[in-house]
């Protein structure tokens, strides 16, 4: 498959960014150093190009019902300018992806939504929405608009002050998970108070042709996917395709600690399986771990007990730049998943001591 590129690929290369393949996109992974970029977001403000995220619009008389039946949360609770985090599950309750659903201003008197699944999932979910619309005989138009938008995340304790300079004070009055459209440098953009870092922050969708103008409006540290990963691991936020994946790491929202995205009062694909699981509880739980011995936890490492019996596996791990200690995320057998439990991580054949740790690793500021 052909590699996809964000609108600012050449701008990032000129700025000295190194790149990596992610979800079929070639994206900046590091501009300066992960530590520098990570510290900017925790201490001041940084900007990420996240144009690889998918954008799909759903508009029409039945757009609410369609989206409600394909995501785990209650879409009917959204007013225009609200957004919500949700999972997209299959019939057995396993997460296909996580997403943010934005309710936009009504379009010709009909409800309109934009939802943002992860990178490289745009065609899959456009097809899923179309197929279910047709199967259920609903009236809604569905359009994959991923290539029409650039998306930037401005994150950090000073993000409100920076936004107030570039846009105006009104956007800093947005509550968490609220969004609005606003003019930036003559282009209509959508701005939401959302993010993936645990810090105060905003995400901005702007037309592709405006990408360079708007990127340059924000005079702050450019950040790559490397820092995006260390920041989200410190918060215990899931990475689609790694902490869950329908093929390689099939997990339900309850196992993955995002049961709060499920509204069992709504009828959605996967609801019945999840209703059963909530009553039965899960065999494994998503946890944080901190290494006590030297070593860095990584995706795929096995977790064992003091007898060497496997009790879980890691799905993410890194050296935490904020805490300066090695941290990981993964799934442990429920009886072993309580914070403070001693476990061991198998690192290149050697067992290293570690401890189950409360999430998030770094307290949330947003």
């Amino acid at each position: 498959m052909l590699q996809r590129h964000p609108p600012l690929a050449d701008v990032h290369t000129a700025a000295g960014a190194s790149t990596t393949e992610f979800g079929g996109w070639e994206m900046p992974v590091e501009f300066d150093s992960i530590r520098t970029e990570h510290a900017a977001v925790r201490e001041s403000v940084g900007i990420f190009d996240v144009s690889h995220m998918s954008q799909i619009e759903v508009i029409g008389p039945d757009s609410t019902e369609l989206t409600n039946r394909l995501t785990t949360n209650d879409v009917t609770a959204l007013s225009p300018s609200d957004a919500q985090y949700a999972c997209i599950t299959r019939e057995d309750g396993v997460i296909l992806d996580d997403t943010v659903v934005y309710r936009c201003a009504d379009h010709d008197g009909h409800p309109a939504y934009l939802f943002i699944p992860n990178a490289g999932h745009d065609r899959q979910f456009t097809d899923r929405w179309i197929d279910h619309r047709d199967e259920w005989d609903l009236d809604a138009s569905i359009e994959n608009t991923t290539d029409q938008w650039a998306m930037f995340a401005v994150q950090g304790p000073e993000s409100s002050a920076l936004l107030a300079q570039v846009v105006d004070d009104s956007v800093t009055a947005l509550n968490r998970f609220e969004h609005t459209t606003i003019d930036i440098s003559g282009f209509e953009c959508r701005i939401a108070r959302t993010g993936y870092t645990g810090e105060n922050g905003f995400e901005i969708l702007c037309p592709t042709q405006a990408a360079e103008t708007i990127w340059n409006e924000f005079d702050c540290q450019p950040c790559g996917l490397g820092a995006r990963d260390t920041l989200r691991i410190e918060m215990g936020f899931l990475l689609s395709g790694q902490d869950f994946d329908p093929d390689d790491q099939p997990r339900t929202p309850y196992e993955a600690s995002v049961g709060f995205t499920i509204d069992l009062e709504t009828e959605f694909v996967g609801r019945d399986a999840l209703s059963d699981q909530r009553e039965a509880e899960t065999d494994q739980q998503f946890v944080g771990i901190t290494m006590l011995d030297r070593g860095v936890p990584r995706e795929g490492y096995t977790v064992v007990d003091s007898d060497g019996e496997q009790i879980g596996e890691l799905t993410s791990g890194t050296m935490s730049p904020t805490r300066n200690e090695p941290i990981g995320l993964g799934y442990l057998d429920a009886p072993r998943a309580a914070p403070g439990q001693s476990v061991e991580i198998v690192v290149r054949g050697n067992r290293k001591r570690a401890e189950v740790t409360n999430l998030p690793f770094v307290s949330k500021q947003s």
Partner: protein
Amino acid sequence: MDFDVPEGLRYLESHEWAQIDSIKAQIGITDFAQDELGDVVFVELPAVGDKIDAKEAFGVVESIKAVSDLYAPISGEVTAVNEALFNQPELVNDDPFDDGWMLQIAPSDETELDELLSAAEYREQIA
């Protein structure tokens, strides 16, 4: 970008260097390698007395984003390990050819030297 490639050292294609005198060889990774890795956060090295073999993995270096094997430029017995790296792995980034050294070994086969790259040859490889 310009990377430091000191004259007088010998290099392996996998970006390790060796500084060799009549009795010992000091080993580390190059400026190019540390830049490619990014922030180094962990180094795993053999112990004094262990034997290492030319072109075989002798340890591991981890940055925030990646895990990489370290390859021995030449064979020999480890005579010293830079234990400062265990608490300050960032020395590999800050000073890869000096304070960021990894091992000293007593070389067991001097003919292996001929297979290593000169500074000029290594400079060409990373150009």
